[in-house]
């Protein structure tokens, strides 16, 4: 019985211990349940996101770049079909073998193969390697022929930038290329970038990147743990960049570029009311299409080593002394400030008796002298002596106020071109500040004929001419179409300004800021005087550009020649008096010409600069004359198009 009692006790212990264990089990299971609750109910969202991140991978698809068109909607920069070869890396078993086969099929050199290996190292295993972004048709069809032997190879029809007018527009439109690390810092590129996307490198392509680049598309794929695509689950289509509409007329641009062929220089043409740049040619030029897929070394060296410097956009980045093209503005300033009576007579006695100031001699360009000159004649025949004296009387500070007001000394197109120069309109303060020297009167004297410190770009000269030609009104020069600016509105605004004339309380002789489409002159008669003198310069005998004139009032224009010295003329030079052709190219004068047309009802201003072209009347004015005819011939078309807008498109 004792045994039995013990056994009962033992059974009790076992059962009791079992219940204690069971309680522990229940507790632990409760712990598991609460953990499950935490993971699956409380933190569900967090884990769902993590799970999606795991299984979904995005591929960005590149957008098409916006096109660039001219005033008439003619395409200047398009997206052309190109043949490309891509390699899907995760479909390739042996990269070396595949590359070897491809190398033989499309004929890659050692250097290109090395480049591909380097490129591959930077990619992720599921990425796509672009073997070539511009295959020829033969290469492309060959690849297609051997496709079954090439694992992972994918021939792709893609688009790339194409410039149909190649050389004619590169300085305006610019070009695209692979993005550099610096490009990628720009927010508009950073936000929209897809590897392989070409970005603007210069000109409109670069400054209008935000408009042109578009938005990339997104393809979402479900992928497995090793990154292999299982299925596409989402596709947000890419958006093409916006169209950029330029004010350029490609026909005129092409012609201007043709006129400059073989020369170094620039031609700019502008609507004097709307400020639309109609043409802005720079020579020599180069082919932007070569840059799209990376320019080869030989072509690059050719461009870089050209002594005529094709890479410089001479219209806005070339700095020149304006020479005599500056004279109308000097005359205007002198008249405005009432420095001299236009009837004042000064005698130009030729090289034997030059203008003299404190013992320094200043010569007129004309050896035998102009004789007795009044202001109108001095402009017409470009007499330097008259302008020396006038500048002396006027003083450089007053001259600089007027020069700056009419568009010199600041860049014309704002931040559109990162290489556009401001030029320089000197005054006494400027010299003291930057050179820490006092101004010499002699510097004023040569400033009067557009020499010395003064520096201008061709586009500035064009703007200056435009703002005199339109009757002395400030306009807003632009090269990207602005629909808010049209001829009728501008004329309207100018008329309102004219009618409010007596109400003006401002002193136009002070250094004041003038708003757009408001007058810049003190007296209207002064502007008219200068315009008339420029008419004489072109259309009257002894005028410096008389030979380039048109008698037909439809084309009749008025202008001013300029010959800008690139070095000091010595007494020896004067004695030798060589022809342009006999002088070393680098030492020849720059030839300049500014003009506006038609004279009776002006609408366009033009500036021409031929580097080392010799005299303005011989080298520059004839080109201007030819271009003016072309511009006027196309004026009606342009006017109709711009009014009806798309009626001619």
């Amino acid at each position, binding site marked *: 019985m004792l045994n039995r009692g013990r056994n009962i006790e033992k059974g009790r212990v076992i059962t009791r211990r079992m219940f204690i*264990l*069971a309680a522990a089990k229940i507790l632990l*299971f409760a712990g598991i349940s609460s953990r*499950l*609750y935490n*993971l699956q109910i409380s933190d*569900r969202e967090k884990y769902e996101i993590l*799970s999606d991140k795991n299984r979904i991978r995005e591929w960005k698809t590149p957008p098409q770049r916006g096109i660039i068109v001219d005033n008439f909607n003619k395409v200047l920069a398009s997206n052309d079909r190109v043949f490309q070869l891509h390699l899907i890396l995760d479909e390739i078993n042996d990269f070396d073998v595949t590359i070897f086969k491809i190398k033989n099929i499309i004929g890659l050199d050692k250097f290109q193969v090395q480049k591909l290996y380097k490129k591959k190292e930077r990619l992720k295993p599921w990425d796509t390697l672009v073997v070539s972004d511009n295959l020829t048709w033969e290469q492309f069809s060959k690849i297609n022929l051997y496709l079954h032997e090439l694992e992972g190879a994918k021939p792709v029809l893609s688009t790339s930038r194409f410039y149909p007018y190649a050389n004619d527009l590169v300085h305006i439109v610019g070009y695209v290329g692979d993005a550099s690390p610096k490009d990628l810092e720009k927010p508009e590129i950073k936000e929209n970038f897809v590897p392989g996307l070409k970005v603007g490198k210069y000109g409109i392509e670069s400054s209008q990147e935000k408009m042109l680049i578009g938005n990339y598309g997104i393809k979402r794929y*479900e992928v497995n743990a090793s990154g292999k695509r299982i299925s596409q689950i989402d596709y947000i289509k890419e958006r093409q960049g916006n169209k950029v509409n330029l004010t350029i007329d490609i026909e005129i641009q092409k012609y201007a570029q043709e006129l400059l062929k073989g020369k170094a220089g620039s031609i700019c043409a502008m609507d004097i009311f709307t400020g639309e740049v109609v043409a802005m040619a720079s020579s020599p030029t180069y082919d932007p299409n070569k840059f799209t897929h990376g320019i080869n070394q030989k072509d690059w060296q050719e461009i870089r080593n050209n002594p005529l410097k094709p890479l410089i956009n001479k219209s806005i980045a070339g700095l020149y002394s304006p020479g005599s093209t500056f004279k109308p503005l000097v005359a205007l300033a002198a008249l405005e400030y009432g420095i001299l009576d236009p009837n004042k007579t000064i005698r130009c006695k030729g090289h034997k008796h030059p203008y003299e100031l404190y013992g320094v001699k200043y010569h007129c360009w004309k050896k035998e002298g102009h004789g007795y000159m009044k202001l109108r004649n001095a402009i017409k025949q470009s007499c330097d002596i008259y302008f020396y004296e006038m500048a002396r009387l006027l003083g450089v500070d007053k001259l600089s106020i007027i020069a700056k007001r009419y568009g010199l000394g600041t860049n014309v197109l704002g931040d559109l071109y990162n290489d556009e120069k401001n030029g320089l309109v000197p005054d006494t303060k400027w010299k003291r500040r930057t050179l820490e020297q006092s101004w010499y009167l002699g510097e004023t004297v040569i400033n009067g004929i557009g020499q010395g410190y003064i520096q201008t770009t061709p586009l500035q000269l064009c703007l200056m001419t435009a703002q005199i030609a339109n009757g002395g009104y400030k306009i807003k020069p632009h090269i990207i179409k602005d629909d808010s600016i049209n001829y009728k509105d501008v004329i309207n605004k100018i008329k309102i300004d004219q009618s409010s004339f007596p109400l003006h309380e401002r002193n136009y002789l002070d250094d004041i800021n003038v708003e757009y489409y408001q007058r810049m002159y003190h007296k209207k008669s002064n502007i008219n005087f200068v315009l008339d003198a420029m008419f004489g310069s072109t259309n009257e005998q002894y005028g410096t550009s008389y030979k380039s004139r048109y008698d037909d009032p439809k084309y009749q224009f008025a202008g001013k020649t300029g010959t800008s010295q690139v070095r000091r003329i010595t007494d020896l030079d004067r004695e030798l008096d060589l022809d342009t052709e006999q002088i070393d190219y680098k030492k020849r004068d720059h030839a300049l010409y500014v003009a506006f047309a038609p004279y009776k009802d002006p609408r366009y201003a033009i500036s021409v600069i031929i580097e080392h072209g010799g005299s303005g009347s011989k080298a520059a004015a004839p080109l201007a004359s030819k271009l003016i005819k072309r511009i006027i011939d196309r004026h009606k078309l342009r006017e109709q198009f711009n009014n009806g807008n798309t009626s001619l498109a």
Partner: protein
Amino acid sequence: MLRERIPASNYSFLDKLKSIDYLLILLILAIGSISVFAIYSTEGGKFSFYTKNHIIRLSVFFSLFLVLSFVRVSTWYKNAYLFYLIGLILLLVVLFFGISASGATRWINLYFLNLQPSELMKIAVIICFARYYHRIQSSDIQSIKFLIQPIILLIVPCYLVIQQPDLGTSILIAGSGIAIIWLAGLNIKYFVYSGLLLLVSLPFAISILKPYQKSRILTFFNPDRDPLGAGYQIIQSKIAIGSGGFFGKGYLKGTQSYLEFLPEKHTDFIFTLFSEEFGFLGSIILLFLYILLIYRIINVGLVSRSFFAKLYCFGFATAIFLYVFVNIAMVLGMLPIVGAPLPIMSYGGSSLLSIMLGLSIVMSCKIYNQEQISVY
């Protein structure tokens, strides 16, 4: 009282059928069929290798379970030590002739099955200890003399299993053994002292761990330590379970497992897959099935007369609980990844065999629950 006098050998077959625990069988079948669906899902919804094998094994071992259920409980009792001895010999065979996979030597090639003796040892320890404590007087239980023997019986297989190396199974073997010592009534102070001793010796224990085991433990404390290496499994497992939500992603729609983010999804991480596809609801139901299973096993122990049967059933129930708890806690990131399968659910012949074997002994306890087993 009347039945008590009828010797067990005289039970009619009908009596035996009557005393079968049908609910237990139902539970086994339920969990078994869930496991088939889960393994079918690990193969991406294709009826192929793993699913086929699992179904074959389930049917074979379930039949074995039914047949062995009719073995008399006294037969199990008599052969308990033999059972243990066979397990030990097999472990030694593994030590010298075992076949290796992924750095561990755990298996014996039996041609139709790669047997993992450590899995059998889990059951052998329980049955051996149940016999040992069956005959010990409650007055002797506290004596050191009777305590040393089971500790040696426990340490030897645990050591052999750790050598394979297989920390998880070793812990489970030790856990089941200790559970029976506890049930037998050993004074609580021993458990407290040895617990303290374990804590103190933990730094030393960690220092003799294999590097991968160490990294698993460190990773357990901070899975982000190495998210693509040692922490990968636990992070991906948590993502899978968490993203399942309340109702789950739907059957065959678990992206984590379907897209191969989950490692070992048909063995140790089968619960993760199940939980991702069936959510909180499904997981709780599965957990409930296991609780019911454990409850039924305990119930058999409660209605058994012999200490052997009671100790065995309670011990086995605790072992099942340990397997389930360790596995689920592991995939939920509550315990380090130690490599412990989920009973019945996980793919793996030896584990299934040992569970079915264990269950058949439970059933035999149920059928012969009135059988008296002599203490001597």
